[in-house]
């Protein structure tokens, strides 16, 4: 009996974009293509083109907020963002996600110049595309990202992050130097759309925006994120132009869930459990529409890699 293959009739597609600029394009690194999808994640009967997914390795230049299991997995390498990024490259990351936490004015308060120097050192050592965040302190981030953006002009970085309450300086730093920018919003499809509208009205090209709708980890509201992401993807494919941009999901927060690493009675090996806590979060992000995953533990990276291969039918 012929089973009907019920394809959804999508009218829209996700815009294509590139991160990282090669020498021909005025940069010094490899580049990645994202987007272009015409169907829901990994359904080849809807969208025969192989889905591009990029896996980013999490790096920070201070260690206060880094999960213990992640520190242990990298050993000495975590003490230096350059060594850490190199280790990620060896472990197969497609790009590096660098958090300049040292610039936090309430702690180390590193200067924008120092931060830019760190970025340049990492870029010199590793030719992968780069995502760069400040410390999450809006006023300071504005200055830090401006300097970083200038120093890495033409390298096509992804700068994080623009929020509804303050997006202009990050957007300007990106626009002036040929970088892309992350538009963050808080677990809500309308807010996700709003930040893209704000950024594009301000002058950022839609092909230069990636949205971060906040990936809540397993046991920490994953269900909200799963559904918000799915709704964002469905709206984009149904023609909502402002949502037709790639999506980034940070899964490192999974280690903040206590069940991920605490001793829970009868819950087995804590490290193995924590790795799956992050990996399951990653899988939920992939199936709900993520184009970039940020991962902390190298084993979670391996698992996510296998998952992407498996969904593409390559394994």
């Amino acid at each position, binding site marked *: 009996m012929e089973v009907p293959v019920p394809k959804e009739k999508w009218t829209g597609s996700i815009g294509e974009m590139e991160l990282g600029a090669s020498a021909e394009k005025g940069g010094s690194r490899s580049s990645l293509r994202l987007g272009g999808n015409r169907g829901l994640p990994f359904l080849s009967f809807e969208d025969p083109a192989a889905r591009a997914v990029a896996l980013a390795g999490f790096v920070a230049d201070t260690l206060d907020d880094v999960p213990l299991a992640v520190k242990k997995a990298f050993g000495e390498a975590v003490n230096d963002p350059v060594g850490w990024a190199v280790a990620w490259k060896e472990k197969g990351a497609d790009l590096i996600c660098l958090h300049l936490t040292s610039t936090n004015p309430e702690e180390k308060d590193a200067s924008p110049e120092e931060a830019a120097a760190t970025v340049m050192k990492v870029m010199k050592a590793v030719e992968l595309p780069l995502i760069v965040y400040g410390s999450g302190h809006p006023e300071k981030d504005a200055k830090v990202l401006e300097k970083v953006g200038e120093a890495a002009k033409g390298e096509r970085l992804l700068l994080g992050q623009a929020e509804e309450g303050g997006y202009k300086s990050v957007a300007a730093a990106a626009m002036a130097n040929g970088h892309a920018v992350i538009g963050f919003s808080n677990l809500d499809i309308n807010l996700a759309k709003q930040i893209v509208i704000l950024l594009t009205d301000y002058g950022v090209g839609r092909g230069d925006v990636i949205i971060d709708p906040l990936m809540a980890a397993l046991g920490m509201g994953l269900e909200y994120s799963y559904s918000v992401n799915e709704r964002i993807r469905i709206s984009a494919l149904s023609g909502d132009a402002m949502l037709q941009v790639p999506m980034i999901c940070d899964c490192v927060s999974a280690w903040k869930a206590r069940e991920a690493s605490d001793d829970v009675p009868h819950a*087995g090996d804590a490290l193995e459990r924590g790795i799956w806590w992050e990996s399951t979060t990653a899988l939920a992000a992939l199936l709900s529409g993520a184009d970039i995953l940020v991962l902390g533990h190298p084993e979670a990276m391996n698992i996510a890699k*296998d998952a992407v291969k498996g969904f593409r039918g390559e394994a």
Partner: protein
Amino acid sequence: MPTAIEIFKHLPKKNCGDCKFPTCLAFAMQLANNKAKLDDCPHLSEAGKNALASSSAPPIRLVKVGVGRTAVDMGDETELYRHDKRFFHPVAFALRLADDLGEDDLYKRLSYARSLRFERVGQVLKLDMLELECRSGNAERFASFAKKVSAETDLPLVLRAKDATVLSAANLIKDRRPLLHGADASNLKEMCAVAKGCALPLVVGADDLNGLADLVEAARKEGVEDLVLDPRPANLKELLERCTIIRRSAIRKTFRGLGYPIYLSIPAGRDGMLMASTAVMKYGSLLSFEELPASNALPLMVLRQNIYTDPQVPIQVKPDLYPVNNPGPEAPLLFTTNFSLTFFTVMSDLEKSKVPVWLQVVDTEGLSVLTAYSAGKLTAESVKNALTATGALERSRQGRLIIPGMVARMAVKLNEATGLQIVVGPKESSGLPKFLRS
């Protein structure tokens, strides 16, 4: 439900009004809206009744396995995306036990199966079924194995064998309503005979969906209606795509040929874990695990709990004043929100501290501390009202209130509203034991 016009075609068209509606068409319209019952028309022919009953059946059949308190309902889902309404019947997890296990190993595995049980935000997460697999090839051995295990557990069972003669062991425990696994193109008639003879649900399996739909049709012709599908994916891609096609064709196209719950056999190791996580999100109804280490079981069970919560209603607890560790009037007073995750996290830390305290749970409609604060559902007023409603200030007479560190900025307003001295607690409740002791 079919449309009013489709229903109307099958009605007697007498317009006699015995159904309490003036015309057959009016009756059809009420039926289409679920406002009347088919039985209300006394003149409906047997053929018409059958046609209507089958076309008004849910797009995915509800299949029950097991009996009593531990019985598992599978299927009867109505959505492709959980945000459209919700997913109703959480995917069941079964652990496989082979009949060639030695006595010791069998009891070890049974006790392991029992230990896979976690309490989380007030709900119990656990294994739902055991699958008994015939590996010995010996019908007698399998039969005595099935009897032995069924005496040891009240969990519903899956009986899995390739040979219908072996599977007829089901007859011995049919009052437990086990699910039978093993029908395929090579043995369909015999397997259906066992299932029909014992009135038990049956899994049919094939390597491609067209073949699977053929088997379903054939099984129904043999008189077996309670079916479960095994689409036998060889990898993640096949799993995701086959499950999606099955669910979509049932719900979007009301294609009855595949309108049944989905069974998946999960191999050990990383590949199995990836398949299982995918199946939890994408339409699995029953996963049978070759192995399920606890370090994998907890994340999978939490994933299932997350995906199957009602998107309209966060899991929440009753707003009230909770005594912890036998508090007296001198014990300190704290508050938190009625989001289950928040409440149980705080509660477990308070219990760990062994310090007697009063915990006021404020109604935030099931939102966490910061979410509720940002949404304006946790305010000095709402905290004050909660304290008044429960008479908290007569219970704890310290004149002080310990508040979550995340909402330190509420301190001044809270002091003004309640007259209490406000003490800002740690940001994470894990800091509470140390904080309370000092």
